């Protein structure tokens, strides 16, 4: 059949239309026009996404490795540092280059940039640099001795190590720090001293809380969504409004409401005491219980909605068919109903989990000091300590781990298995 058809049909480019232009060319033109139109329609969105999403995230990632401040202000020192091995203090020439740069920085008013950058690395260097720049003189004699006399820190290899790490133009300092690692003066990588190694723990905590919240949401949302999908429209609509109502309330208001409910003399504790369940108020807030409760409540609609839309599409006669074929309700549910819900479950879990890992204000208001998630530290570096490099690096670590987890998740669930409704 196919050979017959193939043999009898003339080659496509020989088919001529009225205007003597080969049909294939005409088709290609029409196709191109369609593509251009389609692109034209998508272009505003593409432009918008580039401007508000790709470029800012790119800039954020770039900031976590960009390190040019020191380099611009201290060119002579950077040149000297290139040959320095980091095993012993550099010689007089290096101190002369340093003093020359510091004197120039003082006159240009840029010493503070160097002081700030080095202080990120070794706390206390801020004032050491500012004092040194006030007195720096590149043409004096015995600069090494006089600088060490001025502040013993100039006689420590670690101070030079910090300058070496800051010499740019790219740095691994911020990313290593946000993984609790540090480079010493010779360039080899070590673990951060345990007193300051917090970010890996915080990252694990962030994922642990997010995962627990996701599972709690799933457990609570599934029956609600099921109920909504099986009720007549009138009842379902009322339920839907009840689900959406808190969704339209400000996040801060909902968080504050939980403070009122969960505090020591709050409604929940008073009720339990009145019922005689407990004698002394339970600690329900300013600890991880508060964080889990408030976050689960805030994120619940994001689980209910995709579940509902999936369940709504499951036809009731599948279940009837299963039971008429002899499956008990539990088996029918697990083998017929649940598999059809999976796309909704997958979408809801992903949505809730991804929203949860970025949570900041809820844990800050209802959590304890040991329940803060990674975003808290990002906010700290942006607003309190104005250390954009660290903030970006923590952001990059969060983004990277999330993407990696998403890849694993995608493998397990299968890309086509996610349905947003």
């Amino acid at each position: 059949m196919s050979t017959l058809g193939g043999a009898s049909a003339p080659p496509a480019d020989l088919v001529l239309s009225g205007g003597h232009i080969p049909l294939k060319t005409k088709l290609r033109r029409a196709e191109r026009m369609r593509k251009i139109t389609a692109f034209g329609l998508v272009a505003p969105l593409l432009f918008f996404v580039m401007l508000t999403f790709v470029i800012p995230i790119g800039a954020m990632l770039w900031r976590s490795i960009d390190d040019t401040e020191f380099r611009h202000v201290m060119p002579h020192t950077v040149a000297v540092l290139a040959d320095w091995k980091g095993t012993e203090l550099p010689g007089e020439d290096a101190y002369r280059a340093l003093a020359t740069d510091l004197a120039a920085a003082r006159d240009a008013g840029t010493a503070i940039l160097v002081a700030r950058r080095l202080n990120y690395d070794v706390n206390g260097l801020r004032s050491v640099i500012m004092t040194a720049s006030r007195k720096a003189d590149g043409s004096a004699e015995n600069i090494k001795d006089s600088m060490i006399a001025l502040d013993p820190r100039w006689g420590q290899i670690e101070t030079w190590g910090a300058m070496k790490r800051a010499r740019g133009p790219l740095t691994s300092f911020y990313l290593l720090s946000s993984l609790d690692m540090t480079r010493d003066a010779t360039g080899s990588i070590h673990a951060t001293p345990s007193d300051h190694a917090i970010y890996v723990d915080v990252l694990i905590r962030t994922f642990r809380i997010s995962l627990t919240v996701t599972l709690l949401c799933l457990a609570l949302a599934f029956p609600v969504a099921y109920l909504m999908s099986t009720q007549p429209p009138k009842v379902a609509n009322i339920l839907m409004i009840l689900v959406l109502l808190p969704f339209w309330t400000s996040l801060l208001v909902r968080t504050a409401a939980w403070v009122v409910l969960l505090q020591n003399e709050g409604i929940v504790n008073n009720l339990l005491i009145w019922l005689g369940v407990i004698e002394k108020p339970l600690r329900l807030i300013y600890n991880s219980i508060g964080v889990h409760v408030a976050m689960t409540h805030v994120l619940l609609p994001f689980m209910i909605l995709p579940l509902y839309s999936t369940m709504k599409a499951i036809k009731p006669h599948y279940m009837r068919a299963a039971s008429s074929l002899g499956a008990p309700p539990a088996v029918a549910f697990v083998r017929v109903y649940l598999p059809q819900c999976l796309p909704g479950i997958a979408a809801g879990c992903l949505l809730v989990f991804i929203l949860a890992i970025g949570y900041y204000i809820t844990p800050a208001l209802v959590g304890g000091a040991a329940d803060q998630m990674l975003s808290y530290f990002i906010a700290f570096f942006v607003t309190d300590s104005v250390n954009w490099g660290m903030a970006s690096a923590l952001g990059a670590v969060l983004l990277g781990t999330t993407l990696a987890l998403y890849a694993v998740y995608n493998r397990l669930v299968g890309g086509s298995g996610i349905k947003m409704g």
Partner: protein
Amino acid sequence: MKKQLVSFFAVAGVALCCSAAPAAARDLTVVSWGGAYQDAQKEVYFGPFQKATGVKMTDEPWDGGVGALRARVQGGSATWDVVQVESEELAIGCEEGLFEKLDWSKIGGKDAYLPSAVNDCGVGAIVYNFVLAYDGDKLKNGPKSWADFFDTKKFPGKRALRQGPKTNLEIALIADGVKPQDVYKVLATDEGIERAFKKLDSIKSDLIFWKAGAQPPQLLASGEVVMTSVYNGRIAAANEKDHKNFQVVWDGSLFTVDSWVILKGTPNLADAYKFLDYVGKAEVQKALPTKIAYGVTNKKAGDLIDPAILANLPTAPKNMANVEKVDDAFWLENLDRLTERFNKWAAK
């Protein structure tokens, strides 16, 4: 369409050139913290200043942050002249050269002001304290010092402190017997930091940490905690608006100063000095504390303020007897590492 575009650009061009040229002709712009505080300033400072001097001025609110000031000064088109900044912004901005170095002879001389209100680049506007507060209705015989804050036998119950190491390490050391004026000397050593964390550790299971300044009065009001660290202004506001009987312990409290600065390169320099001179006068400043519970910085203002109001101000002599100023230089250097350390401690 094209014609419209051309005329649009023409209008925009005219607008640009004309707004850039007579920059010097704009009114003096004073920027402060907004809200109830700026309303009080309008009434006490901004209105009377225009009447007294004939200088035209406008006022704007801002949310703080050196970045905002940096962008305005370095961008070259600053529309602000005088800004009220926190002490940390004062320190950073002065080092970065964002502010005019003040000519003190134009604003009454350094001696007219409290020593802590005098800085190369700024003159203090208000003084406020980080104090220990408790509910006087619940604790008849309340705590007298930070040492009592750490005494869970005498005063059982939860306590609240601010999230993070800043102010908490100082409080821990003062509670441990360090004199307020020596706190930063002790904190500068590793042993001092160990000592502070050890002290905090002694009441760790009874501690709650707050994040927003509005939380501590709420924590006290709901009975969640028996005492808390808090800004004194919040307590005064709660007592006044919500008719609470919150008590403040001034002894060993930490204070800080917000300052007026003049942004570098302002075209209204002379008017800016006139403004600072005016708001620095004792007879002008004396009216501010009647509106809001902040201390003012002119040494003579205290004598002019009603003693009943003065008693609740950070600048009352008896309240200032044993206090220490929050050391911004220390925190600028050490905040990152100590925050890490604090969170390590908290997670243990």
